[in-house]
């Protein structure tokens, strides 16, 4: 669906985006993650045709985004991070305005707008002036507006910033709903927990570079290299530690009062065998579970130490914002 090849964006000597290559398949819900100034918005703006890349290529459905700007615009629905409104414009007129910008007929717009407003749960607000809507409603309306011409690719830049928890949940449900309809969605955010809950794959950007991309599980596997295991026990801690240390495919991470954390490259059967061995040697094992890596830990390990980067972030602030 969306293919980016060796994309660069330079502002003088400063590289906002550097050698970014990415492929997002049809129907994917892709999360763009990165700290402020990482180059997420710059990348999104280049994909949407709001900025020309310094080098590289962007193609959507095999069509070059720069060579076929007009056709590409029909395939993209863009939701910016800020919702600007026109005073004295009703919700249905707002939809009509943007529909007619795609040269759609009034009847066609009316029909599609009705469906979209129902989808975003704003059917009862058709006659309401846009500037009186709550921020969450405005954001949902903005999504409906971006879908008026039935684009294949929906791009949302920080759609949840400034929304209350309820509005965030509603937005998440809406995006999952759209994904189930077959839309390809690209969403940029730094609210990692939300992205990990809904995205099928992610791309982590840092200082203009894409440092990791793919399915969250695959990236975690690649970054952490092994699986984590947490064993909780009542008695026999020393014995359990000795058994773990004797196994060449196990690395002891930490030993607590009633808990041992280890990383390993064992199969499921080998894990059961290890636990069984401990029990056989009078270790009272009360439980064990796989240690899940969070998107936050993944993000921190991929992008490095936050404090060390503070100064760099200031330099890396995107000039167009």
């Amino acid at each position: 669906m969306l293919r980016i090849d060796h994309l660069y964006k330079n502002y003088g000597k400063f590289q906002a985006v550097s050698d970014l290559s990415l492929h997002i398949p049809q129907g994917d819900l892709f999360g763009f993650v990165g700290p402020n100034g990482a180059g997420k918005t710059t990348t999104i703006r280049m994909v949407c045709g709001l900025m020309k890349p310094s080098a590289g290529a962007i193609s959507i459905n095999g069509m070059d985004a720069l060579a076929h700007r007009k056709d590409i615009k029909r395939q993209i629905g863009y939701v910016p991070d800020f919702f600007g409104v026109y005073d004295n414009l009703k919700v249905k007129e707002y939809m009509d305005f943007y529909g007619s910008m795609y040269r759609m007929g009034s009847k066609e717009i009316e029909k599609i707008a009705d469906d979209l407003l129902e989808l975003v749960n704003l059917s009862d607000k058709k006659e309401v002036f846009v500037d009186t809507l709550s921020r969450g409603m405005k954001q949902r309306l903005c999504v409906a507006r971006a879908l008026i011409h039935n684009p294949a690719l929906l791009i949302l830049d920080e759609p949840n910033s400034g929304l209350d928890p309820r509005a965030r949940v509603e937005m998440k449900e809406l995006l999952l709903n759209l994904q189930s309809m077959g839309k390809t969605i690209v969403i940029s955010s730094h609210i990692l927990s939300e992205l990990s809950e809904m995205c099928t794959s992610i791309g982590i950007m840092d200082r203009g570079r894409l440092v990791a991309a793919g399915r969250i599980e695959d990236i975690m596997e690649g970054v952490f290299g092994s699986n984590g295991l947490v064993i909780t026990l009542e008695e026999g801690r020393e014995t359990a530690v000795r058994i773990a240390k004797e196994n060449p495919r196990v690395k002891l991470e930490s030993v607590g009062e009633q808990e041992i954390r280890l990383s390993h490259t064992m199969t499921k059967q080998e894990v059961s065998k290890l636990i069984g061995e401990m029990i056989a040697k009078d270790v009272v094992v009360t439980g064990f579970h796989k240690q899940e890596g969070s998107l936050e830990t993944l993000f921190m390990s991929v992008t490095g130490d936050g404090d060390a980067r503070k100064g760099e972030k200031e330099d890396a602030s995107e000039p167009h914002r």
Partner: protein
Amino acid sequence: MHLNPIVKKDVKVQSRSMKICWGIFAYELILALVFFLAMLVIQQNSIYSGGQNIYNAMVWLYPILAVTQLVILGIVVPVRTAASISGEKERQTFDIMMTTSMTPFSVILGKVMTAIVQSMFYVVAGMPIMALPFIIGGMSWSSLFWFLGVALLVSVFSASIGILCSSICRKSISAVIMSYGIYLIFFLGTGLPYLIYQLVIAANNSYGYVQSGSGDNLLLLLLLNPAVYLLEFFAEVMIGESVAASMLGTMSSTQPGGLVRLAASEGRWLIISTVVFLAVIFLFLWLAARRIDPVRQHRRRQSMKSKA
């Protein structure tokens, strides 16, 4: 026919605001005040000139009211258009607009057409007052339609200046100031060089120096002078003579040639000047469209930075 969506939306949105009602009210009020003031002056003149027929003098209400309206349009339209693109940027709706199928030129055209529609609201609202000299007699009704044409040209010209400045400036207020600056250049910048040249010739002649060379190229600048254009228009309508032709004959010490000669011939100045103004309007709109095109804009910025 597919109406430009920006015109449709902007006219609808602005019509709902009380601003337009107050604007028309102020416009009518100014016209009424000018009308009564002009009537008072005509009456006083009639008394002091020994009972001259007042109705003969009333035809002069036409240029007085027309100029008043054109001045108002010249002031109001740039303000409206100067805030159009920069206003979209300030509202942060501009990016969304540029991701739609609308081309930069159709966005610019939409904004200009909105300004024209608005200015025509004013002109049409002023028609009853404007029609008074025609009711009394002495003027042909075609003059009224010619005035509408000139008002349209003034609106489009003012709007093109405003929209260009709006595409250049980030803030609306800067765009408005810049618009008036450009206006001033057209009014003074195109007239002053020729005026200074003529004063120098006049001074030299009085001291007995023989002037060599001609100011024909400076004369061409006058084709872009709105004041000369309006003067020519009213002279043609009121007295059926070309002021420009007679001015060229008396002011130029040399025989004008080429375009100047063509422009100086009876009745042609207005046509050539209109064409020149239309070319300038198109140039401004084209430049504005280039300015708002995000891809071209960034290419230019980038090349400037790489040069630096």
